[in-house]
Each structure stands twice: as structure tokens, then as C-alpha cells.
């Protein structure tokens, strides 16, 4: 039988074409992307392409993570919705109470009118400041105590919310509040009735008059229409204290 593909009469093409075909096969194999050389190949890409590739990969990973998160959150939402449907009124009152307690404990952000007190070291004290020219931890403590006494509902010192376990203590040239270092000038925000706090705080013979005796510039109190106090951000876990189940009478 005659091969139909045999009928090219001019045979001189076979040798060069075949040789270069072999070369081409070699090249194709060499440029084949395998698992082994993929990573190295990516590194040799121009930076823009590399960044694009990485972006794509990260986006996919993020997407997967988000998908999982959406799943868990949806499950939680349905569980909560079911609980609400079971006992809508009871749970809503419970939630309200919980929010109230959280606000009272200082775990929520709070905003409202109040007084802002700024304490700073005496700038005119010179190179050798007297003891009264510097703001100490005890000054901050006394000011906050005085503000609570004047009717403050919530206080923060340089953004640190004062709660039941707050400590204010000298730590060298700065002060620790809630274990966080804060430095002069101390901005103390107190939410409450501005008029009442202001008048109570600035009364003669009070803490303010005492601090201002060294220099009036060390303490300033201003009434504010709107203050915003951040929540307590420290740890709220207990290791030793346990709430007793039966209250003693």
C-alpha cells in the first residue's frame, strides 16, 4: 500500500526540518513548567507581575478564610435568632441589663457632656523644678477622686478608662494608668453634669486650687458639651475570685 504522506518528491527538506524539530523538542521540554521549577520561575518574573500573582494568591486565601468565617457567623446568628424567637422578651431585657452592666463596668464606649481637666508640669519652673512644679501620680489620683466626688460618671486619663481595678502609679518620669504608660500633659475627661462637676472641682480650697498654687498654668478645667470616653481595654479575666453560688444572709 502506498503511504499518502510519502508523496513529497523533493526530499531535501527532511534532514533540516527533522534536526530543528529535535532542537524545538529540546526547547519545549526545557521551558515546560513543572512543580520543581515553578517557584523559582515566579521569583524571576518582573516585580509587577510577581506582585499581581501574590495578590491573587492572597485574595484567594482571604476569600477562603472569609467564607469559613461567614459560615460560623451565620450559624451563630441563626442560633441567636432561634434563642430570641424562643424567648424574645426575656432575652431582650437580659441583653439590655447586660449592656447596662457593661456600661457601668466601663467596658463600653461612653459619650456625653462633661468636664475636661488638663494637668501639665510647670513650664516656667526652670532647670531645677521644685516638687510642686511637677505633676505626680498622686495629683492625678486626687483629681480623679475629686471628679468622682463632684459627680462624674466615667473618667479617662489620656484615653485610659478608669474602672474598678484601675491603678494609677508613678513609674519614673511617667505614670502608669491601667498598666499603660501615660505622660504629661494629662488630659482627664469626666462625663457628668458639666456645671456641677465644674463648680465642685474648682471650689476654693479644693484640689485644683492646691495644684494651681504653684502655677495656674499647671491645671485647666473646661466644660465640654460632648466628650467621648473609650472602653476599658485591659484584661477582665479573674484567676482567684469566684462568685459564690449561695449568698450568705
Amino acid at each position, binding site marked *: 500500500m502506498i503511504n499518502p504522506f510519502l508523496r513529497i518528491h523533493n526530499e531535501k527538506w527532511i534532514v533540516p526540518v527533522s534536526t530543528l524539530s529535535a532542537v*524545538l*523538542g529540546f*526547547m519545549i*521540554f526545557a*521551558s515546560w513548567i513543572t512543580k520543581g521549577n515553578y517557584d523559582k520561575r515566579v521569583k524571576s518574573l518582573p516585580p509587577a507581575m510577581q506582585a499581581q500573582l501574590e495578590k491573587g494568591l492572597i485574595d484567594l486565601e482571604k476569600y477562603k478564610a472569609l467564607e469559613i468565617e461567614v459560615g460560623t457567623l451565620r450559624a451563630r446568628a441563626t442560633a441567636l435568632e432561634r434563642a430570641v424567637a424562643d424567648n424574645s422578651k426575656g432575652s431582650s431585657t437580659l441583653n439590655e441589663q447586660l449592656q447596662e452592666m457593661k456600661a457601668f463596668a466601663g467596658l463600653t464606649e461612653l459619650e456625653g457632656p462633661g468636664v475636661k481637666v488638663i494637668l501639665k508640669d510647670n513650664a516656667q519652673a526652670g532647670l531645677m523644678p521644685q516638687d510642686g512644679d511637677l505633676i505626680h501620680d498622686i495629683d492625678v489620683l486626687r483629681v480623679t477622686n475629686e471628679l468622682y466626688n463632684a459627680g462624674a460618671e466615667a473618667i479617662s486619663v489620656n484615653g485610659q478608662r478608669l474602672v474598678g481595678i484601675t491603678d494609677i502609679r508613678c513609674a519614673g518620669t511617667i505614670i502608669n494608668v491601667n498598666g499603660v504608660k501615660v505622660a504629661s500633659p494629662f488630659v482627664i475627661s469626666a462625663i457628668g453634669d458639666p456645671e456641677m462637676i465644674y463648680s465642685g472641682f474648682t471650689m476654693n480650697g479644693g484640689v485644683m486650687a492646691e495644684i494651681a498654687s504653684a502655677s495656674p498654668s499647671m491645671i485647666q478645667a473646661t466644660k465640654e458639651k460632648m466628650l467621648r470616653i473609650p472602653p476599658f481595654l485591659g484584661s477582665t479575666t479573674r484567676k482567684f475570685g469566684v462568685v459564690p453560688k449561695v449568698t450568705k444572709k
Partner: protein
Amino acid sequence: MILIPILFLAIGMMVASFLNVSMADANALYLAVACIAGLDTILGGIRSAYEKNFQNDVFITGFVVNILVSFALVWFGFKIGIELTPVVALIMGMRIFNNLSSIRRHLIREFNDWIAKIRQARKEQTENSESVAPAQSLLEGID
């Protein structure tokens, strides 16, 4: 006969696999572009063989120059910040399709010719046997 270059393509791949050649740096992209250019030139060579105007020097210089030009284009593109790899791939891909369609036409024509030839041969054979048979019987009759 068109199978010989394909066979050699496989041989080249096998040689590369035996030598464990694998490009793993920036040159791999250039080599990939060169592969497309080379494939185009090989197909062009086969096509010209079918058209009976194959020339050794044209073919070999075409192979080398196509590869070099595609190299140079891609390199130049990187230098001036334009991605020219798709451009080379597009043009060479178009040419590959052109060459392939031309080769396909030639092959179909060859195949049809071959079929026609076989039919012709069979027809002639039957005619011959028909024309021969009476003569033989005649001869037998004579005997």
C-alpha cells in the same frame, strides 16, 4: 514522511528529559517565546516542502532569525516596560494556524489523489482481467 519531524520532536524532548534540563530563571520566558517561534518555522518548512519551494538556507535562517527576533522583542518590551510576550505569541500563533491550514489542505489533496489513484488502479485491473479472460478461454478452446 511528515511523521519524521514529529518523531524527531519526541526524540529532542527525550534527550532533554534524559539530560534533566529545566529552565528555572528569567530566561525561561524567552525560551518559551522561542518555542512558539520555532514551532512556526518548523511548520513553515513543512508547508514549503509541500509547495515544493523548500530552500535549506531560507529555512535555517528563518528558524534562527525568528527565534532571535522574538527574544529581542520580549527583551525590548521588558526594557521599556511593555509586555510584548503576548504580542509575539499572538503573531506566531496566527502564523502557526496559517501554516497548519495550508499543510492540511495539501494533505487532503494528497489523500484524495491517492484514493483516486487506487480506484483507477482497481478499475484498470478489472478491465484487464475482463479483457484477458475471453482470450484465455479462446486459447483453451484451441487447445
